């Protein structure tokens, strides 16, 4: 029986808020742990009755970090409802926007959120264990990182008018072409930004070299993995089929986005708003899987750009023929994807069609009854699924976001780290930060993932040694 409860609230340096509860047994060891998600946004519900073509703008308001992912997943869903295929130049421009978001989001996560643990140490003073501490410790690197995030944001602004919540993708394509001047100005910065990304890889590699045991064991556990792949089994972030691999790395399924409900189900726990998606054929919880950078790089066969593919080969060697399981290697996978995104931007800008003004297709007035769109958001696979009525108004919407897919894994990571590092009721702050760091590996965005109705855990109960509640807080 759990005899004592430690609550860490809020988890710092993740987007949104969460609450972790650790239940200690009589021996002071962690018996159970829960990562609670208490936020509720209800976006699926309040989008009902809205015209489907508004969803590209409405859904991206879920998040200020990865609005582009919702924007594009929604546009792809609306393409289906509209019954059109966007012209190739529009697809290229959408992918360019998408890659820009990967640059700004992945760079921010590594250098702003996760980097402080690695550069300054898990046990550094919390007051400096942040991006501002990195600026003090290594201003040259820090401002390169700040500049890299700005680079990604500026591409988004060039295309969509704003750095956050752009207005660009529309059902059937995009609403503006790319100018030659913008293309050239973006291209001129790629090489320097690749250098910054490689510095990040070097920083991480150096840390892993010095902390190999921690890196390999930290929140390391077996799971299945999910991610989009292209027709050759390569990394694909904008489009493709969904591949699922088992804990041994063996491909167990591959399916089209519109069939996702045949393969993915959602489990609900009473202590979290965030649902727990799982692979239906394996059932709950055996079918739990991981998505995001680690998930993607554990399911793909290759990466279609040179530098990223070379780094990918080194990444896969870590697993020695099996998937890479350690949660800290999410950061490595994230940096490899950052390199890929920059190289992919270079590839896209070299496409002659990228400056074309043939950027939009128009469809019949009568909408399809249902559309499903999928995209790889920086944090993982993102599904948008809309049902519309005869007038094109949303009748029902279902969004499954990356943080939801990783819900089981984040809880598993917290438990793994808590059992290894937390002993007894008096825990040094640095130890608590290790628990938080386990969550941060998954780069969760709880404000994104709590749009679905659940049960609101508004109570905090403090349990005494005899298992009797000694304090209760209601919020």
């Amino acid at each position, binding site marked *: 029986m759990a005899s004592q409860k430690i609550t860490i609230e809020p988890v710092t340096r993740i987007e949104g808020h969460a609450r972790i509860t650790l239940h200690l047994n009589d021996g002071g060891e962690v018996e159970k742990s829960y990562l609670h998600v208490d936020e509720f946004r209800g976006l699926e519900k309040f989008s009902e009755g809205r015209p489907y073509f508004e969803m590209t703008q409405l859904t991206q308001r879920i998040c200020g970090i990865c609005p582009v992912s919702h924007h594009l997943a929604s546009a792809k869903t609306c393409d289906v409802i509209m019954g059109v295929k966007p012209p190739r130049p529009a697809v290229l421009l959408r992918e360019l926007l998408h890659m820009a978001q990967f640059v700004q989001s992945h760079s921010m996560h590594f250098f702003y959120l996760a980097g402080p643990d690695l550069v300054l140490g898990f046990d550094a003073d919390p007051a400096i264990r942040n991006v501002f*501490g990195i600026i*003090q410790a290594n*201003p040259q690197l820090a401002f390169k990182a*700040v500049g890299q995030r*700005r680079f990604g944001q500026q591409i988004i602004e*060039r295309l969509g*008018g704003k750095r956050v919540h752009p207005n660009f993708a529309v059902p059937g394509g995009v609403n503006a072409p790319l100018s030659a001047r913008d293309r050239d100005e973006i291209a001129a910065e790629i090489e320097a930004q690749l250098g910054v990304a490689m510095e990040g890889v070097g920083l991480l590699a150096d840390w892993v070299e010095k902390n190999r045991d921690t890196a390999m064991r930290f929140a390391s556990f077996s799971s299945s993995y999910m991610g989009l792949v292209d027709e050759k089994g390569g990394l694909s972030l904008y489009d493709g089929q969904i591949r699922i691999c088992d804990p041994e790395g063996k491909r167990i399924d591959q399916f089209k986005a519109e069939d996702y409900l045949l393969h993915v189900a959602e489990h609900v726990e009473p202590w979290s708003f965030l649902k727990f998606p799982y692979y239906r054929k394996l059932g709950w919880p055996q079918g739990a899987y991981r998505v995001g950078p680690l998930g993607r790089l554990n399911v793909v066969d290759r990466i279609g750009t040179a530098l990223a593919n070379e780094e990918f080969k080194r990444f896969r060697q870590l697993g020695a023929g099996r998937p890479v399981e350690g949660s800290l290697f999410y950061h490595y996978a994230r940096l490899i994807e950052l390199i890929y995104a920059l190289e992919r931007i270079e590839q896209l800008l070299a496409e002659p069609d990228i400056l074309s003004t043939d950027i939009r297709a128009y469809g019949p007035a009568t909408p399809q009854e249902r559309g499903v769109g999928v995209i790889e958001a920086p944090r993982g696979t993102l599904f948008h699924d809309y049902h519309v009525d005869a007038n094109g108004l949303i009748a029902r919407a279902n969004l499954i976001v990356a943080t939801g897919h990783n819900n089981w894994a984040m809880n598993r990571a917290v438990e793994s780290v808590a059992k290894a590092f937390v002993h007894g009721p008096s825990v040094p702050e640095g130890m608590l930060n290790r628990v938080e760091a386990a969550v941060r590996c998954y780069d969760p965005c709880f404000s994104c993932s709590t749009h679905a109705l659940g049960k609101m855990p508004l109570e905090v109960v403090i349990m005494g040694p005899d298992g009797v509640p000694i304090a209760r807080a209601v919020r």
Partner: protein
Amino acid sequence: MDWSNRVPHMLIIGYGNPDRGDDGAALHVVNRLRMRLGQPPLTEDDGGLEDLGRDTAVFVPQLVPELAVDAAAYESIVMVDAHVTEELRPVVYLRLQPEYQPPTLSHQISPAMFVWLVQAAHGRNRAAFLVSLRGHCFEPQRGLSPATAALVDPAAEKVMELLHA
């Protein structure tokens, strides 16, 4: 505007949330300034960051580290905000010194911390000022309260004085 051969002089950064009533007062001040500087007004979808000139007024939701990189190119910076403190004058003018004030969130930086970031980005201090006008209503609504709307012109005038100093 052709300013390619001239050193960027002053960046005016208005910040706030126009969806929270007077919290968006800086947008009104910025647009007053842009009119006087011969620049088109900003809309909610255009903060002006893509068209930085020698003297430019922009509007952003928050002060963020990336903005410090833009600001570091300028000789001086003026931040425009709204305040709630009744004890302060309706239009407050302060000269800012860089101060390391680590925030709780990366997108909630104080003006003094922002100046510290600008200094860290560029290696030397910039003249920095804060002009703040008193807000009266910060509820979720569009538009300014009459009392705060009356302060927009005086606040813009104060910035113009700094611009021409």
